[in-house]
């Protein structure tokens, strides 16, 4: 809930006093100037009535706060404030008159002056009441609006994060168990190679587990990890595939979301290398095109392997890129003859 805007902030209280200078000027013009009244009486009148109303004005806050726009009907709010305004201003006039008339020497003369200016006093009081009450409502509405906006932004970020997390590359259990099986075999057949493979798998897993869904890494780092992955798969598949890359030098340091290329390679291994009896060539190129990094992975496959279009893995990358860069069409898939080609466009931060 919103705290009192004047009591909780000295700056606002100062502004409030400044506002009272205006009210006092209004008061002088409407009630005191051009009237026949002694100076001492006039000064006493001004001080008593204005200090009283200034104090009351701070109190108007509470009725605005408890008769909130969200929770009450507009008719009820208006009628309540009309009644409350009338009562408070009457009270103000009554108390003010009581104090001043008891302090002045010539009570009758002051009474004449007071009643002659009563309608102006009432009008000014009502005016002040509604001005301040409206001001309080604006503050309440604005603060609530800000809070809602902050909450909405937070909520949106939370949703995006959750979405990203669910899209994040997950270690494929097939890969893990098959690798473990290969290593188990190697411990008998070629212990040295088994050790190498274990170390590579450990490095690969460490990278995969350490990077989170939003983290950016350099293309070189990501490629280093992919090579670990391919080395491990190579032990399993031996001569069944070959990896060739052509990376423009300026691309190596560019930042890309971590684990964004990994699923592409996994997809190629799963659908092409695994389903094809011939050798598969995985060809990766990276060039800079305008403000984008253009990354292309191409591989041959057997056209008669009847797997359906782009898999879940590729769609997940597309969705991740959309969420990270707020842009569609950052991923293209093309399947023609015996070639499968995925193109990624990663926006580059130009500094």
């Amino acid at each position, binding site marked *: 809930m919103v705290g009192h805007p004047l009591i909780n902030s000295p700056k606002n209280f100062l502004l409030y006093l400044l506002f009272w200078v205006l009210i006092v000027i209004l008061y002088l013009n409407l009630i005191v100037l051009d009237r026949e009244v002694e100076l001492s009486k006039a000064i006493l009148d001004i001080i008593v009535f204005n200090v009283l109303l200034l104090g009351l004005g701070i109190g108007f806050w509470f009725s605005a706060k408890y008769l909130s726009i969200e929770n009450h009907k507009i008719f009820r709010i208006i009628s309540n404030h009309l009644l409350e305004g009338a009562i408070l201003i009457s009270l103000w006039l009554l108390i003010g008159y009581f104090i001043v008339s008891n302090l002045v020497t010539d009570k009758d003369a002051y009474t004449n002056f007071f009643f002659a200016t009563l309608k102006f006093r009432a009008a000014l009081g009502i005016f002040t009441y509604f001005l301040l009450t409206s001001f309080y409502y604006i503050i309440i509405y604005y603060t609530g609006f800000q809070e809602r906006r902050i909450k909405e932004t937070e909520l949106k970020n939370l949703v995006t994060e959750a979405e990203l997390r669910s899209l994040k590359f997950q270690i494929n259990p097939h890969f893990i168990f098959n690798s473990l099986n290969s*290593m188990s*075999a190697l411990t008998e057949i070629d212990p040295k190679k088994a050790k190498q493979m274990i170390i590579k798998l450990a490095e690969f897993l460490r990278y995969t587990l350490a990077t989170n869904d939003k983290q950016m890494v350099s293309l070189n780092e990501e490629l280093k990890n992919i090579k670990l992955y391919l080395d491990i798969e190579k*032990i399993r598949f031996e001569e069944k595939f070959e990896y060739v890359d052509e990376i423009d030098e300026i691309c190596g340091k560019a930042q890309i979301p971590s684990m964004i290329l990994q699923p592409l390679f996994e997809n190629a291994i799963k659908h092409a290398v695994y389903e094809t*009896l011939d050798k598969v060539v995985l060809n990766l190129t990276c060039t800079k095109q305008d403000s984008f990094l253009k990354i292309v992975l191409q591989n041959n496959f057997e056209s008669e392997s*009847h797997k359906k279009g782009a898999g879940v893995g590729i769609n997940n990358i597309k969705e991740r890129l959309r969420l990270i860069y707020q842009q569609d069409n950052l991923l293209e898939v093309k399947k023609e003859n015996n070639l499968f080609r995925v193109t990624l466009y990663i926006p580059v931060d130009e500094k």
Partner: protein
Amino acid sequence: MKDKVKIIIVDDESLARQISKNYLSRYDNVEIAAECSNGFDAIKKINELKPDIILLDIQMPKLTGFEMLELIENPPIIIFTTAYDHFAIKAFEVSAVDYLLKPFSEERFEHALNKAIKLLDDKFSPDNLIKNVIAEHDKKIETLERIVIKDGGKINIIPANEIRWLEAQDDYVMIHSAQGKFLKQKTMKYFEDHLEETQFVRIHRSHIINLSYLQHLEQQETDSYKIILKNGHELPVSKSGLARLKATL
């Protein structure tokens, strides 16, 4: 002296075959008749060499272990091996077939092998056991992407989208495809349940059609319809078939 137990190892990864070979080398009473790295080769070798036991991997290119099983006549005793396959493991559990989860220990391997050899000594016929595994596995798969059929010595792989229509023929189903006609020993219910339901509709007790091969639907009399396929072939439509057809279209 008894003959040696003949074993064939089927696995697409050479290291996986190697470890089984190493384990088996410690037994005097077994001999490795063949090693196969894919399903086609394995079917050929199995028919040729008539092994007693097969060590069979499930995930293999072209032809999975399950698809292979459908194509082997009088299958021998099978020890399944798999690294990670939820559906397969469920099927093995339910049908009480022994299986090895990779990587497996030598003790676990020995246990499975001894069990298999004992079944062999008891002249156990694994036919029903294997039918059960296939049936259990069929229940688990959602959509069929391809069908494998053995036609004489040839193995045909028919992608689901190349099927034109299916026709019930006693205990078999005749598959009419772009590649020709093939008989498969399955039920119409099996195909109705496992073919992509937005593409295939059972229009009649004995017919399922691929909607992309449908030319048009023709009304003959009130409440009586027939279907004309793209090749001009006509098929009857039953009342419930018409309702299913309308729901899909």
